[in-house]
């Protein structure tokens, strides 16, 4: 019985994490280039709605993913225009996008589907889980069958994409030309500019990548997890992803570990609901929900580790003299 619980915690951690991983890695590109991305939440919500609506209308999840990507990239470009070209306040822009999308997605969902701001159930238009070859043959073997069929296999394509992204992002950020320029723009845009790097173009490109990556987060929410769009269904995932980014010190591996940790908290929360724990007693779900945020504040306060943001973050780049 205990083993079964542990197994389901592990599986649901793996399934919870991609929403945060996509968004956090998206934020990583934006913020490493020097643009604060508080607008992750709005982009997740918009792509979640677009994915669900288009997947339902076409009965094809892949079109849904494409639509989500289009919407998310469009929002990222608005952010880029405001933060880079207009040199406006990046925080304000992100918050504006979050608030606007929270309202607009509901209005559109209500307008198109008339179901109280949600989309109809996607049923066959959801992404199917991948069944690895030989799953049935191994299923009766105790540990290996579960490991192969339910942990490594039996996941949606997007889960694999999320985990494969980690090495890719790591390589791009630390070993590619673009990554070098990206980091330079986030740390010292004037030096990058003097070295002949176009800060504006690099930041626009970073925001484009952020838009693409963030769209998967929304698509995952609707096409894999819930099977429909619901008002404000992102429920703070964008902020939590940002938190993971702060927690992971803007480094890909640590950020993903942060996402997995938050995914674990989510999984434990469901398991702990109504269970008596020695000493503490019955821990209410609402307080467990707060743990990731409290942990982050502690980290931010430098009590566990020191989190150092990219130096030029949030500052518009003005070519000097």
């Amino acid at each position, binding site marked *: 019985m205990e083993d079964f619980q542990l197994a389901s915690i592990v599986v649901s951690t793996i399934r919870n994490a991609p929403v945060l991983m996509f968004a956090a890695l998206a934020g990583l590109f934006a913020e490493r280039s020097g643009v604060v991305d*508080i607008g992750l939440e709005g982009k997740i919500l918009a792509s979640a709605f677009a994915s669900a609506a288009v997947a339902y209308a076409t009965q094809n999840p892949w079109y849904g993913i494409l639509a989500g990507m289009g919407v998310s990239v469009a929002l990222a470009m*608005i952010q880029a225009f*405001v933060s880079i070209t*207009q*040199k*406006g*306040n*990046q*925080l*304000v*822009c992100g*918050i*504006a*996008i*979050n*608030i*606007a*999308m*929270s*309202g*607009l997605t*509901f*209005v559109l969902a*209500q*307008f198109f589907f008339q179901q109280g*701001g949600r989309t109809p159930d996607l049923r066959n238009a959801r992404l199917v889980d991948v069944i690895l070859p030989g799953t049935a043959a191994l299923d009766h073997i105790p540990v290996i069958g579960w490991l192969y069929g339910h942990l490594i296999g039996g996941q949606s394509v997007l889960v694999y994409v999320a985990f494969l992204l980690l090495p890719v992002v790591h390589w791009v950020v630390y070993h590619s030309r673009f990554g070098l320029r990206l980091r330079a723009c986030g740390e010292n845009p004037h030096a990058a500019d003097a070295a002949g790097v176009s800060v504006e173009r690099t930041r626009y490109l970073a925001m484009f990548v952020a838009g693409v990556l963030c769209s998967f987060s929304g698509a995952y929410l609707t096409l894999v997890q819930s099977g429909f769009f619901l*008002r404000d269904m992102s429920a*703070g995932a964008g*902020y939590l992803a*940002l*938190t993971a980014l*702060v927690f992971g010190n803007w480094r890909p591996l640590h950020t993903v570990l942060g996402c997995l940790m938050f995914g674990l908290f989510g999984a434990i929360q469901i398991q702990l609901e109504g269970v008596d724990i020695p000493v503490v007693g019955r821990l*209410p779900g*609402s*307080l467990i*929900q*707060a743990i990731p*945020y*409290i942990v*982050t*504040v502690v980290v*931010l*306060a*430098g009590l566990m580790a020191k*989190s150092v*943001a990219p130096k030029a973050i949030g500052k518009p780049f003005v070519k000097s003299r």
Partner: protein
Amino acid sequence: MKKTELPRWATGFVLPILNLMSALLVAALVIHLLGESPSESLRILVDSAILDPEGLAYTLFYASTFIFAGLAVSIAMQAGLFNIGAEGQMYVGGLGLTWAVLALDAHLPGWLMIPIAMIGAAVFGALWAFIPGYLQAKRGSHVVVTTIMFNFIAASLMNFVIVKYLIPEGQQNPASRVFADSAALPLLNKIFPVLGDTPLNISFILAIVALVIYGVMVWRSSWGYELRATGLNAHAAHYAGVRISRTIIVTMLVSGALAGLGAVNSVMGSTHYLSLNFPAGAGFVGIAIALMGRQHPVGIFLSSVLFGALIQGGFDLSLEKPNIPQETFIFIQGLIILFCGAMENFYAPAILKLINLTRKEA
């Protein structure tokens, strides 16, 4: 000679109006796409939020809360702090208020109960803002991120406290018990019967007083000078002898107290009990108000009334036009924040060109 800076009347008046118009234009486009007439919608909105006396009372009732939220964000902005946590501070402020009322409302008369409850709201709001302020001042953790975290922590904490301790026995609704009459704010319709059966109460007057005090404190006191100096250039202010970390902490305390006071209007003026998620985004509207009002008392007042009118008019509009639900106005709020806050200088180059053109002709 070409001037490169806009005159004050242009930045303070023309730009906000143009930005607001742009936001409303996009909103009108969306309303048009939803198959409704933007001009008719605007007429319904203005009729029910401004021209109708009862509607106007509701508009000002919502505005009272927004003024406090706007002041909370504005005063922090003066010191260069971006307080995104007004929502959480207002929520926790509501707890301080409720705690005082539940303990005392059976024993105290209204003239004593109301001020004590207000102090409770201000103190709890201030305490909730203190930790992010302290962490920013002493540990260098950015107030933007910590206040976001504190919004989420406040939501979880209040959920826990309300469900576990405040629901009266045998009740299902996640809310505290109803307050005694001594904790109800005097309504303004006692003096002005034309306002009808509306919740507009003395906290509107308090909000006006708060606006005046804010103006005097920020621009006419030495504390306000230190506050603004810190916001303009913390290094220079430090060099001039301003104790930066103390200014930051005190500013956040004041900001949190103002946000906490925002709870007074809706909890003691209307519902008379503490309910789950009662601020309903008012703290975030405060950000929009501070940005649009450019942290100036008159600006804060005008934008609070505008947002109050959008809420009140939007409610009536959603009843008449099912295609334009209330959430449309959340979208419009976002647009206003985008155009008036993030893209505030979008039209500046064009206006500058125009001004310089007329100058040349003159």
